[in-house]
């Protein structure tokens, strides 16, 4: 079987036309990672949950970036990135400044799209760091060396690439030194602070944003007010928003970086009509969309160069190539009813793209089966319509307080749908925001889309078996034992996707070994085997199945099919070999052909000709 992402990751009936799910690459991004490599980054440590040991700040920064890099190459491979260490022993940069080292691999510009090789070598950077790059404090008051200043300069120079109109440019600064010029004489300190801040401001004026990812000492918080508040240009309001707790744990840092690396992209601008004469402006964001491996590019197997695919429409009657828009037909009432593409698109266009409020319902009216596709997150915007945010917040609060959701009609999808707007309160944890405040738009199915399966399994007049109190009690005990601690919805990596990229990476780097990917979605065997758990399961099983678990009461559906097959096999009416010899197999019906196939344990799929051929091959043996 071939691994075709279009097949593997799509259900049979998923709409290929619907590209709403796929993120559109709106613009590209240029990112420079500025990593402090001073001795202090190596000597300070903090606790890592994952590996359960003390990790140096440098290790935390580097492993966060390595992880972010991997998601970069998968999700946003058009972005260009560069790595720049400062406070280094060696220097490597175009400006030839001391204490700054731009890390790169062959076949790649300093700032360029990430390659497999870059990922691999960056993964190993800690092993060779001391030998090749080295750590050394680069801010020296006597010589007026200022590696932070130099690093900003180098980064800014790297980011000169690309137009600031079409691309986002950012620097991510990793450091644990909250007061870089703290130990200096006051005059020198003032001078250095001023020039460094000016440098940063110059960069910002060029449209480059500087983001700080500070690492705190276990005993001392990173104090942003000392210096960096001015460098990244925070005013006093934003200061409270800046999360100083970052950097306590490796996991938090990874989380932080992941969130910041993703640029916020508006999926859709939506006009929300609350009532006649009152419309507010919302932005829709696709916060949840299935990640799929990239599309397939066909390559010439001899040259490994991309192949040009041409599609042509050919008239089967004349062999002529069809040009332009082709008409469509629907056979109906013994004729072919013809539609132009224009007419079809007109049929589908029944509304403006607006979101129109219809009313409110209590939350329990939204059933678990009222779902079709991933939700869209809505957040208000005052950019075009002033007052939108206020109206939105008021509705948001009322809906949460009254435990109601809004029903609305949304014309922005094909077909337009009824949607449920569920208000979501902000949820925060130590690591930052877990759920943003806003509303989630849930696409509701139409009656046409809902199937009454339950009815199929009803036996009129025959009561379905219901559990006894004892069985319920055992089920309850089982559920308590099997409670998942700290389960969070997106904690699992997609094992198929992980494997897919591991394969790509191994082939790209000519590695013999496949990077190990763990399937996190498998049940926790160790936990399942704890005596208390085993006992609870055993008791539940006992209460349901009784002493003999194999003694399943069976009303015989399966037996019947088995019987039918068996009797068919005995029931060979024809001398197939004789028929085959005389070429008369084609006179039999498909059912009769299948009887033979079933009796001989052959596959029964395919058209009649295929079945005949299969029998002939079988007899031929």
């Amino acid at each position, binding site marked *: 079987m071939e691994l075709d992402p279009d097949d593997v990751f799509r259900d049979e009936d998923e709409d290929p036309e619907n590209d709403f799910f796929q993120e559109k690459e709106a613009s590209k991004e240029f990112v420079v990672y500025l990593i402090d490599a001073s001795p202090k980054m190596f000597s300070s440590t903090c606790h890592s949950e994952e590996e359960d040991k003390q990790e140096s700040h440098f290790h935390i920064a580097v492993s966060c970036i390595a992880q972010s890099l991997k998601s970069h190459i998968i999700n946003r491979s058009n972005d260009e990135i560069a790595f720049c260490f400062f406070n280094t022993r060696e220097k490597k940069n175009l400006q030839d400044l001391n204490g700054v080292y731009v890390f790169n691999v062959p076949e790649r510009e300093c700032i360029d799209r990430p390659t497999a090789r870059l990922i691999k070598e960056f993964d190993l950077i800690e092993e060779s760091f001391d030998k090749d790059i080295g750590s050394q404090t680069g801010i020296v008051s006597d010589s007026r060396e200022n590696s932070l200043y130099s690093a900003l300069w180098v980064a800014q120079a790297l980011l000169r690439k690309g137009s600031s109109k079409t691309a986002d440019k950012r620097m991510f600064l990793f450091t644990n030194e909250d007061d870089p010029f703290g130990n200096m004489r006051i005059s020198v300190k003032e001078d250095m602070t001023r020039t460094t801040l000016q440098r940063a401001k110059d960069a910002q004026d060029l449209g480059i944003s500087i983001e700080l990812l500070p690492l705190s000492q276990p005993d001392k918080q990173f104090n942003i007010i000392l210096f960096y508040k001015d460098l990244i240009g925070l005013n006093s309001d934003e200061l409270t928003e800046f999360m100083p707790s970052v950097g306590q744990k490796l996991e938090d840092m990874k989380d932080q970086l992941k969130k910041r690396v993703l640029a916020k992209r508006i999926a859709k601008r939506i006009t929300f009509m609350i009532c006649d004469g009152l419309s507010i402006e919302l932005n829709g964001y696709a916060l949840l969309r299935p990640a799929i491996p990239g599309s397939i590019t066909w390559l010439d197997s001899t040259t490994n160069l991309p192949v040009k695919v041409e599609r042509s429409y050919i008239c089967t009657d004349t062999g002529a190539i069809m040009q332009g828009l082709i008409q469509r037909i629907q056979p109906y009432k013994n004729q072919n009813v013809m539609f132009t593409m224009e007419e079809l698109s007109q049929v589908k266009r029944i509304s403006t793209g607006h979101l129109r409020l219809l009313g409110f319902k209590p939350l329990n009216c939204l059933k678990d089966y009222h779902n079709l596709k991933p939700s869209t997150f809505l957040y208000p915007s005052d950019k075009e319509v002033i007052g939108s945010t206020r109206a939105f917040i008021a509705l948001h609060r009322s809906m949460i307080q009254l435990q109601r959701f809004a029903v609305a009609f949304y014309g922005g999808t094909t077909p337009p749908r009824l949607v449920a707007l569920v208000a979501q309160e902000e949820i925060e944890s130590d690591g930052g925001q877990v759920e943003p405040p806003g509303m989630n738009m849930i696409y509701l199915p139409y009656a046409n889309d809902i199937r009454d399966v339950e009815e199929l399994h009803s036996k009129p007049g025959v009561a379905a078996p219901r559990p006894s109190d004892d069985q319920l009690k055992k089920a309850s005990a089982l559920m308590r034992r099997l409670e998942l601690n700290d*389960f969070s919805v997106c904690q699992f990596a997609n094992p198929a996707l992980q494997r897919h990229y591991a394969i790509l990476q191994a082939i790209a780097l000519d590695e013999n070994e496949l990077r190990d990917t763990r399937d996190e979605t498998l049940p926790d065997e160790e936990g399942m085997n704890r005596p208390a758990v085993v006992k609870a399961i055993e008791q*539940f099983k006992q209460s349901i199945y009784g002493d003999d678990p194999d003694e399943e009461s069976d009303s015989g559906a399966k037996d019947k099919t088995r019987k039918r097959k068996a009797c068919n096999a005995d029931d060979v009416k024809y001398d197939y070999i004789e028929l085959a010899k005389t070429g008369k197999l084609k006179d039999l019906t498909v059912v009769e052909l299948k009887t033979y196939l079933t009796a001989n344990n052959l596959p029964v799929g395919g058209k009649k000709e295929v079945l005949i051929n299969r029998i002939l091959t079988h007899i031929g043996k």
Partner: protein
Amino acid sequence: MARNREGLVLLIDVGPAMHSVLPDVEKACSLLLQKKLIYNKYDEVGIVVFGTEETGNELAREIGGYEHVKVLRNIRVVDEVVAEHVKQLPRGTVAGDFLDAVIVGMDMLIKMYSGGQKGKKRMCLITNAACPTKDPFEGTKDDQVSTIATKMAAEGIKMESIVMRSNLIGDAHEKVIEENDHLLNLFSSNAIAKTVNVESPLSLLGSLKTRRVAPVTLFRGDLEINPTMKIKVWVYKKVAEERLPTLQLYSDKAPPTDKFAKHEVKIDYDYKVTAESTQVIAPEERVKGFRYGPQVIPISPDEIETLKFKTDKGMKLLGFTEASNILRHYYMKDVNIVVPDPSKEKSVLAVSAIAREMKETNKVAIVRCVWRNGQGNVVVGVLTPNVSERNDTPDSFYFNVLPFAEDVREFPFPSFNKLPSSWKPDEQQQAVADNLVKMLDLAPSAKEEVLLPDLTPNPVLQRFYEYLELKSRSTDAALPPMDETFKRIMEQDPELSSNNKSIMDAFRASFEVKENPKLKKASKRLLRDKPSGSDDEDNRMITYDANENKIDVVGDVNPIQDFEAMISRRDNHDWATKAITQMKNRIVKLVENCTDEGDKALECVLALRKGCVLEQEPKQFNEFLNHLFELCQERKLSHFLKHFTSKKITLIPKSEAPDSDVVDENAGDYFTVKPEPMLES
């Protein structure tokens, strides 16, 4: 009848009390039959009406009684006629007895399919169930119904009753209704029968399952608690989008004389080294490549086979968690239902015990699923309890897919608390909002809930099949306007809004919004003459505009919007003519009165032209344009004329509106050469 075919009898109440809803009943039934013609064309259908003056059914002839029940069509394969037929239901004159009709329908099905014919047998009863039923000759009504229902169950006949009660007069015979509801309930408990109460034409359209889909299991196997404890389950789709039928490509290349032409179109893919090259690469010379950063990595099928992620079919329980831990918006896809294997009584029990306990304690289960052997991926999802209200239905679980870590893009958004206070509502505003959320209520009680997804039909499908029917009769039939019934999902219920008028007014007054003056969006919006089909949200719909539907005059503030809204009003055809006339006056005024608003006048002319093309009123526009041209010449408004030329405003030619008597080449003629004959008007 083959196993997968269906014999259906429609039992339709056409008594006087039903007259007002019969047009909607006709619509729903004809859609049902249309879809059968396309998807299940071997299905067989009979139609019975009751409440008619005449009587016409076999039972009446054989044993007497069963009056006012008329068989319009005996059970036979669906054909063109029947879809037509059901659109012209007779209007009855007497109150019909639905029990009589049910017996007639059942009798038809039994006679037709006796002798162990396979296939599904179904009756669909549409009535208001507000008229009294006759007492049986012996025993009580309850006994009678139970007997019928048991017989139905024995014969494998299913019944679906749609009870339409929107238009009951206040003093309705409550006793009768109560009794009828009780009888219908009896059907449900003794046979596979369900009753749906509908309150509006919209839910009537939604309540009739028009597309019959054979249920197919997605998975049959074990729900594994641990390796020793397994529950046998089947998984089906609970929700799956019904789409428009896939239309075939059609080729008109074959000469008209060729009677055997298939008119089919084949799609060919050629793989070439370069676009110019004629050399085609054979399939075995191609290899799949995947993008990884700037590189494309070729992977051979062998490599894929040996390296790919391998899975074993099965559902494995990971554990339980609080329901509140799984926020509703994390559901990723359409929904599956996990039912216990009906032949395994112990599995039914086990599912039931867990589902009921989950419901009791507000817990959900997290499971890992692989639906097919060798499937290249796994899904992690959540099982939520679906505890049955019906005694004879086993309990089950709903299954929703949850996202993987890679599927989430967490962007931080500012806290509402941290926004400037001018962006936040004050106490009074909050109170107004509370009121709106409370009062604009779509579910005053569970019974009165409107816009239930389960009863709301898809407007696009409805429209397509309507159009298909029209086109089958005349190839160039125009696209029908949106059905009025669907207004109920596209805009607020006028009754609900007018009941809450003061609340809505208060809300509007408390939350004033204004366009940001710094944005010059207006200029962008001016020339809105985009090709229809573009995805621009601002591009107004001509056929139906939910926004400004009640506009009845072309004002001078937003003449274009008014005009577009007016011309698309479908409640009366006169609106189009009125809109055109008013727009013409508006344009003449704009041209006459001012010099600097040439742009606006021009805008209006463009809008008028577009409207006239859509309404197929070329003459109206062409005459007006000539008139306008004259006017400008008279008043020496040459700058305005220049705009005409630069914006290429032309007469509406034949190619855009077949009624036009202007040929395409002459469409621009009015401002270069004065076409004398056209100025008669």
